């Protein structure tokens, strides 16, 4: 009788011991999990601060470049170069830059602005030449006694990627007489061409190549591009 009670008591004490051990383990697990969660939160907060700082820096650069551009435009318009009018100009440019600093330079890439401007200036005379040539062609179409006009809509998939290069190509096509960009949807250009010749000229893709060259896109890799990329790689390392 006494032995049975003793055994029962021993069993009971073992059970209690086991239970308390389990509970202790649970508590420890929870503590460990909470600590790691706190650490992750802390890391996330630090990352957010860094990201915010980077964002602020980018915003400031955008603000300053927008301000300089707008100030140049203001001075061009104004024509009064006394202190009063220039200070009004600084105020107005500051206001506009504050409201729309993320419009003008919505997605600039690192350090290639100067190259783009240089290449664009080289592109303009070529475009002028194309415009004159197609002008003569369209004049010939209009004045020729036989009916040479063969209007159609051609579509082609462009290899251009950024919005600004697509817009440059689309506007170049529209500026050239005989061809008009009807629509641009997901990189596919729908172009109205007035005759077979202008359509074929367009399909050779020379204009597209030149635009891709300006904005350093598609399969155009140049020494300058690699030089521009170098600081980014250094930063990545």
């Amino acid at each position, binding site marked *: 009788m006494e032995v049975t009670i003793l055994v029962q008591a021993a069993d009971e004490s073992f059970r209690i011991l086991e239970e308390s051990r389990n509970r202790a383990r649970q508590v420890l697990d929870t503590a460990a999990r909470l600590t790691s969660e706190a650490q992750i939160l802390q890391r996330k907060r630090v990352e957010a601060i860094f990201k915010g700082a980077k964002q602020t820096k980018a915003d400031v650069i955008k603000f300053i470049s*927008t301000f300089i*551009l*707008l100030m140049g*435009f*203001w001075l061009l*318009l*104004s024509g*009064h170069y006394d202190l009063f*009018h220039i200070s*009004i*100009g600084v105020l*107005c*440019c500051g*206001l*506009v*830059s504050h*409201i*729309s600093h993320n*419009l*003008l330079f*919505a997605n600039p890439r690192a350090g290639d602005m100067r190259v783009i401007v240089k290449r664009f200036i080289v592109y303009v005379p070529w475009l002028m030449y194309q415009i004159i040539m197609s002008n003569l062609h369209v004049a010939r179409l209009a004045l020729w006694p036989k009916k040479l006009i063969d209007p159609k809509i051609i579509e082609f998939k462009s290899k251009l990627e950024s*919005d*600004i290069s*697509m*817009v440059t190509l*689309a*506007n170049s096509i529209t500026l050239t007489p005989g061809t008009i*960009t009807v*629509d*641009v949807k997901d990189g596919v250009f729908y172009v109205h061409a007035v005759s077979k010749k202008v359509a074929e000229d367009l399909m050779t893709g020379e204009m597209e190549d030149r635009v891709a060259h300006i904005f350093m896109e598609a399969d155009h890799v140049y020494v300058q591009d690699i030089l521009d990329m170098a600081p980014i790689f250094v930063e990545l390392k």
Partner: protein
Amino acid sequence: MIIKSTVDMTRQSDDVIVKTLSRLLIPFIQIYALYVIAHGHYSPGGGFQGGVILGASLILLVITYGLDNALRRMTERLNTILCSLGVFIYAGIGLLCVILGGNYLDYKELDQILHVGIAQARSLGILGVEVGVGIAVMAVMVSIFLDIATGGLPKK
């Protein structure tokens, strides 16, 4: 009966050409509007014209980038404040001239507080009035457009 607008103004334009070109043009339109306001006493233009151009730039933003983007730059609350502030500047300068002993909007009396000579006081007075008119016209234009675009319903 509430008439809901048939066009969803919160939607962005899906045309890459329209979006990109308006993105590039809007800052220049705005600076041109401010130029028209600030040089109204030298050259053609003035508060009303400049205000309309400034309002048009914001309306272009609503059309191309959707209502939300525009409201992030210019909230309806700020718009309402500007609307009354413009009228306040205009009427305030006018009444200031009366208080200083002249007629309504008689800018030469402003010389008594500015101490810059009568001709300069007139120039500054009309500039101030034009700024007021510009702000009020811009705010009213945007307010009318937003009311039509949202079907008169307040933004949630």
